[in-house]
């Protein structure tokens, strides 16, 4: 059986000053229906480019994206099945359009329904995301950050997609609003049988909601595992560094860690890209790029590290 979403050996190169730069470097990922797969990594790791490739907003240099086993033709067909919710509800909504118009936009673009049917659909979508239908005539800029994110979610649901790509959907929101939007997203997933690709740098949120996690570094997936396996038994040194960097509430003042900051230099073309920051690195790491392969005894837990079979000290 084929996965709902399958990314196969995807590569995206951009032109850089010193030759091509691989923003996405040989990424494969399969997402099953109903999963919340978190894509985790820091700025520049390629997670947003990967999302744009999945949405067919960019063409890959090589590799392909399959939906339920077939390659959708073009952006518009893809949009019927996968939609995107952006991080910034202030930047991604036209502030001068009414909320109703924004939510109806995908229906208009895809020429779905009569005017009246669209109106009914917009009201139903608004109710589903907890917006007051009586307020839909107001312009986007009149809404708070949390409400704007609800508008963006309603718009993303307008075409009844199977998959939502959530690109840092909480980062621009206040703490008390984050939990509200998170609760909404989880309720919608249940009610509408949605599948989420949740892009985030916030590991605390990822630990709370993901079913599976893929960690990206320098364009590659360096570790992929179920949520519990990843947080309980990380096998890639970068994952361990990320976990150690999460600020811990109420654990007292921080203890020093000694991992160096990322180097300014471009990623290496041979060997493991994380080697310059890795305490465990040996000559082999700088010579030979480790493949993303299963940890011994747990086929679903994969890590791209020559020492993947060593548990943390």
């Amino acid at each position: 059986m084929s996965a709902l979403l399958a990314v196969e050996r995807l590569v995206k190169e951009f032109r850089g000053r010193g030759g091509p730069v691989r923003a996405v470097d040989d990424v494969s990922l399969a997402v099953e229906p109903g999963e919340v797969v978190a894509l985790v990594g820091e700025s520049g790791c390629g997670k947003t480019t990967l999302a744009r490739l999945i949405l067919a907003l960019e063409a890959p240099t090589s590799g392909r994206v399959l939906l339920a086993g077939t390659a959708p033709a073009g952006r518009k067909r893809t949009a019927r099945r996968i939609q995107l919710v952006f991080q910034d509800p202030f930047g991604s909504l036209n502030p001068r359009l009414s909320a109703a118009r924004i939510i109806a936009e995908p229906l208009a673009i895809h020429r779905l329904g009569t005017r009246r049917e669209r109106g009914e659909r917009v009201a139903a979508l608004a109710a589903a995301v907890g917006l007051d239908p009586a307020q839909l005539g107001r312009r986007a800029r009149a809404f708070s950050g949390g409400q704007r994110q609800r508008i963006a979610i309603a718009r993303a649901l307008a075409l009844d997609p199977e998959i939502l790509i959530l690109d840092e959907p909480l980062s621009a929101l206040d703490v008390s609003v984050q939990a509200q939007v998170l609760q909404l997203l989880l309720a919608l997933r249940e009610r509408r049988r949605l599948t989420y690709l949740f892009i985030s740098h916030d590991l605390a949120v990822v630990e709370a909601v993901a079913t599976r996690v893929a960690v990206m570094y320098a364009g590659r997936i360096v570790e992929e595992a179920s949520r519990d396996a990843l947080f309980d038994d990380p096998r890639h040194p970068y994952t361990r560094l990320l976990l150690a960097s999460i600020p811990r509430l109420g654990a007292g003042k921080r203890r020093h860690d000694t991992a160096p900051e990322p180097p300014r230099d471009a990623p290496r073309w041979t060997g493991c890209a994380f080697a310059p920051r890795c305490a465990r690195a040996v000559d082999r790491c700088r010579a030979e790029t480790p493949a993303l392969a299963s940890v011994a005894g747990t086929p679903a837990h994969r890590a791209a590290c020559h020492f993947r079979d060593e548990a943390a000290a």
Partner: protein
Amino acid sequence: MTADTDQPLLEVRGLAVRFGALTAVDDVSYRLAAGRTLGVVGESGSGKTVSALALLDLVPPPGRIAAGAVRWQGRDVDAPARHALRGRHVAMIFQDPLSALNPALTIGAQVAESLILHQGLAGAAAREAALGWLERVGLPEARRQAAFYPHELSGGLRQRATIAIALACGPAMLIADEPTTALDVTVQARILDLLLDLQAELGLALQFISHNLAVVSEIADDIAVMYAGTIVEIGPAQRLFAAPHHPYTRALLAALPRPGQRRPPEPIAGMVPTLAERAAGCLYADRCPLVLPACRLARPRLTDIGDGRSTACIRQGEVAA
């Protein structure tokens, strides 16, 4: 040792800031001793930045300081004189280091400028001392990177450079306003380490402002929780986390996902009142599960409840559960 028993370097009492008829910050009081860190947490519009700016008389117009007393090293400092505290005594760094840096000057020149202005150094001596500061804040290959312009550095290194500029003035206190918010999580961890190191080395008092309670908990000795322009709870970090005495603090803690918890956090119903919606009673009343009719009649004042803690809730004894 708590902030209560230390000799304070800074003491703020009853600070209020108004924008026209609207009150943005009301009755803010706290103390800060040398070598200690006060974490100030709150959501957007809570007044955490505006109250820090008021300390240095930097509130942007049309805002104005409507009330409040500031004591620095035991002496009263009236509003106009607060400007002079800035730099020499109290330095400030911000979320976006690019906005604080001059794009047309190299990093080294900007640190040197700070030393020339505030320490009376000149020429080669200032340049050498600037290099020393860049090394101290952990800029790798400081001599080479001193010649870089701000846009040539990563976000983390830029923030290190602004810290060097701020500290080169020789201040006794540093106000850091969301200094790690724009940074990646591994870089954030390194900057927090740096601030703790420099604080230990220089005996700095640190006022660390953030919306992120988890980040604040990693660096603060004491925490002030702000809500809608007021401090609703203040006290030693560990005790505040273990047993919050204000319903907002409690709700904020429950709204944050915690490592190991593996379930979604609990939302806080409702929204922060806007400046125009701020009524006479407790500003949290509309969202509070413990609200009583009395809460809406008069705003509860921040009251000492012992153990170095204060809270502004008439039901404080019933909050922790």
